[in-house]
């Protein structure tokens, strides 16, 4: 009977004290306490089983763990423990291990008998209910087992609870008829261990959508948290409306869900934005964000994430994709249910918001540059109005624009392809990469990018491009000290390589050269991903450009 010395010491005293304290979990405090400890208890039971696996018979086990009988016995009478996830399995496994196939003394015989009665209690007849014996006889005469009976029973109970909750919408005049808040609260806490039981889904849905008359939340927070956990781990699936309701009622759950999404996205290797969009859509957050309250919370969390990562391009991309999906979801909403834009962006200049929210697909391509010019003019007016702009306001405005990065990418493209006055669009891009101007950083950036732009425009229609032709631009990029200037000019250059007549000839070399010598590979990669996604989404892009994009992306994924 080898004992692994690295197995952590099992804390029997702690759990036995807990089990005694809980009893059969009939009071609200004991119920809440059990719910709090269920995951650790399950872990403990699994560890206990691993330890007991090699033990033969109850006497040996009792020598090792004197309190084991008391503990297992008590836990078997706690329906919260039995009902939870896999705890009942672990308990039964432990009991099986304790059974002696050749009892040597009366103690073992007694222990065997005790084990069998506990298992019968768990699986067939028990004294939990007073008239179970009669029921058992009835169903076994019919040829069924307790498995069939309890299958039906649980479904019936759920059915009747759901009916009770649904037929009593709060009727202000008829208080006696409506279900009492304490009853709903009691139901919700009793559901906590059972959340992953498939039978329960209708009840979960009904509880989440239930609105009593009280302004306070009547569902207990343990329940809401547990449902959220199970949903995030994909152990249960709920309809969108129920999840929305959950998040509206319990903001910690919403925050957890948003952070969980960010974790998921940041940890997967981003190979295409389709994957990102898929993960975001599955999280149901864009759809839920149609509620302004949810949108604002999610927005804040994203903003913080951006600040904490110093504006990392992956986070920016995630925010931009999220915003696009949010707009799509909002578009699909029924007109009557739509909230006004001011509800989502209360502190911003509304005409700017409206302009940014127009999706490129809603406008003909020929009017894109004009639209962008409008945005740029509005923005300029806002930002350069020294009476209004504080640093915080500036950041908020910049963040707003960043969320709608799609337009900014289009701006860069339009700069090169469309025959328009470039100033407004250049200003827009400059603002995006360098919002601040106390020390004339942006003005300086404008000057630099203007020079690069002029140089590139001269080469735009040149079909026979070589790396030497671009040398001047490349030198500028490598020579700048400020990283925002670098990013701005690299952005322009990358767009040039994608869309100019001769760019494809030198694209790979050029990008390789730049990313090797500067710290811009992540930004370039994000830009390429976004452009590929945009093309797929809008069905844009000629074949050559698409081909080039894919080649470049492939090269990148091998490197990054």
């Amino acid at each position, binding site marked *: 009977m080898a004992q692994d010395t690295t197995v952590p010491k099992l804390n029997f005293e702690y759990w036995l004290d807990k089990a005694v304290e809980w009893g059969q979990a009939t009071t609200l405090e004991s119920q809440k306490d059990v719910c709090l400890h269920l995951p650790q208890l399950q872990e403990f039971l699994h560890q206990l089983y691993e330890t007991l696996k090699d033990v033969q018979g109850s006497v040996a086990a009792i020598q090792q763990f004197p309190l084991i009988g008391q503990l297992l016995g008590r836990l078997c009478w706690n329906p919260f423990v039995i*009902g939870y996830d896999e705890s*009942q399995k672990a308990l039964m496994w432990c009991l*099986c291990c304790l059974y002696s196939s050749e009892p040597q003394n009366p103690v073992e015989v007694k222990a065997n008998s005790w084990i069998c009665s506990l298992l019968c209690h768990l*699986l067939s007849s028990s004294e939990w209910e007073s008239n179970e014996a009669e029921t058992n006889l009835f169903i076994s005469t019919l040829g069924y087992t307790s498995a069939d009976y309890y299958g*039906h029973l649980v479904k019936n109970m759920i059915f009747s609870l759901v009916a009770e909750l649904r037929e009593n919408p709060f009727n202000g005049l008829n208080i006696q008829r409506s279900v009492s808040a304490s009853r709903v609260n009691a139901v919700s806490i009793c559901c906590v261990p059972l959340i992953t039981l498939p039978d329960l889904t209708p009840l979960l849905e009904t509880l989440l959508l239930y609105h009593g008359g009280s302004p306070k939340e009547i569902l207990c927070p343990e329940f809401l948290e547990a449902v959220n956990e199970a949903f995030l781990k994909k152990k249960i699936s709920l309809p969108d409306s129920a999840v929305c309701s959950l998040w509206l009622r319990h903001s910690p759950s919403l925050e957890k869900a948003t952070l969980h999404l960010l974790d998921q996205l940041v940890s997967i290797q981003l190979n295409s934005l389709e994957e990102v969009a898929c993960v975001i859509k599955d999280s149901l957050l864009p759809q839920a964000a149609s509620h302004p309250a949810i949108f604002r919370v999610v927005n804040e969390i994203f903003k913080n994430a951006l600040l904490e990562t110093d504006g990392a391009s992956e986070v920016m991309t995630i925010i931009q994709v999220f915003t696009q999906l949010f707009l799509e979801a909002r578009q699909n909403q029924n007109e009557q249910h739509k909230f006004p834009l001011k509800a989502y962006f209360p502190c911003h200049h509304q005409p700017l918001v409206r302009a940014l929210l127009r999706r490129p697909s809603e406008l003909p391509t020929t009017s894109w540059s004009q639209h962008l010019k409008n945005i740029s003019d509005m923005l300029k007016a806002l930002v350069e109005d020294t009476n209004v702009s504080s640093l915080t306001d500036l950041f908020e405005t910049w963040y707003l624009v960043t969320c709608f990065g799609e337009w900014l990418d289009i701006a860069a493209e339009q700069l090169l392809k469309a025959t328009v006055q470039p100033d407004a669009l250049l200003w827009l891009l400059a603002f995006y990469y360098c919002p601040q101007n106390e020390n004339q950083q942006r003005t300086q950036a404008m000057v630099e990018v203007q020079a690069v732009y002029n140089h590139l425009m001269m080469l735009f229609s040149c079909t026979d491009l070589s790396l030497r032709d671009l040398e001047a631009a490349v030198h500028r990029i490598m020579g700048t000290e400020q990283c925002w200037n670098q990013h701005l000019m690299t952005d322009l250059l990358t767009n040039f390589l994608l869309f100019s007549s001769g760019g494809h000839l030198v694209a790979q070399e050029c990008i390789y050269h730049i990313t090797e010598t500067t710290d811009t590979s992540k930004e370039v990669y994000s830009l390429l991903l976004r452009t590929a996604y945009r093309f797929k989404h809008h069905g844009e892009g000629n074949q050559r450009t698409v081909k080039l994009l894919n080649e470049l992306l492939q090269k990148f994924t091998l490197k990054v």
Partner: protein
Amino acid sequence: MAAVLGRVAELPALLALSRSALVRHWDAPALDRALEWARYFQHVHDRFRARPQLREALGRRLRRAQPCSPPLGFSALGRCPELLGLALLENRALPPAACRRLLRRLLLPPPPGAGAGPEPRGLALLARRKAAARLLALPRRPGGTEPRVRAEAQLLLGRLREEEAQEGAGAAGRPRWLCGVLERLPPPRAFAVVAAALALLGQGSGAEGAGDGDRDGSGQDGNRASAAGDGCIAGLLLSWLLGNRERFSAFCLCLPGSLLASLAGHYSQLSRSYLDLLTGWGSHLHYDPLQGRWVKSCLEKAELSWEELRERFSCLCQGSALLREQTQAALKLLKTRDGDFKVRGLSVWTDLLMEVEE
């Protein structure tokens, strides 16, 4: 096939054995064999469930092998591992070595690569559901069928439907086992179960099988057959109820007026007998001028008081239009026969009619 039939006929004996004290001679290998048999029966069930003729043949063979009530049906083959496993678990005569083997095979996860016995997963689900039933058993509001009673009714219906599908109408043995089964429950419970079963049939709950989804009747035929079959089953339950006066009287006494009214709305034989019964009870009331109300003539008899009677009649009048007309017509007739009085205190029927028409 003959071999299969022969083996299937062993099932009742095996189950009976597993519940008896004879298992004390079993050792671990014997237990293994028993569980293997159970798996074999389940396998037979799964193979033949989609083939009606073979299914019926197996069902008939099973019935022949059991002299007493109620015979196990084809679906019991599918439940065999659980039936046997749980029966053995409850049997205290099983010796330790065999018991240990049983526990390991029933409950522990199988070692990778070995063919398993009954899925341990199924029993874990059972334990979980049992706990769920305890957790969700919050005190309910009155009205509506209690979930436990409803579950028992669903199982009863499942069994009856299975018999119906197999044997068709007119199998002589059925009423006998039904009585025996219902007598296993104490009367108030039995009545509640039968009432729930009738209510379920009345609502046309054709989709509710008995847990294992054995209702694989083929498409339209299945539906038509099951509607007709349900009618037969209802008839069976009603004849059990109505066949015995005392039983029916006790039934009507112990169930609430609203439930009886809704059943009466669905089943015309029931409404007739119920009205007759109420008439009988009503005629035993006499008016006490000192107290100013109707009282029972003999306090000990199991009958309804005036208030209860009034409640019953009003429930009936809140039912379907047909039922309401029937009830009012009956009361009017009784009132007329009694002398057609218009004043209270002279005829119980006058008074009832007045209460009910308010």
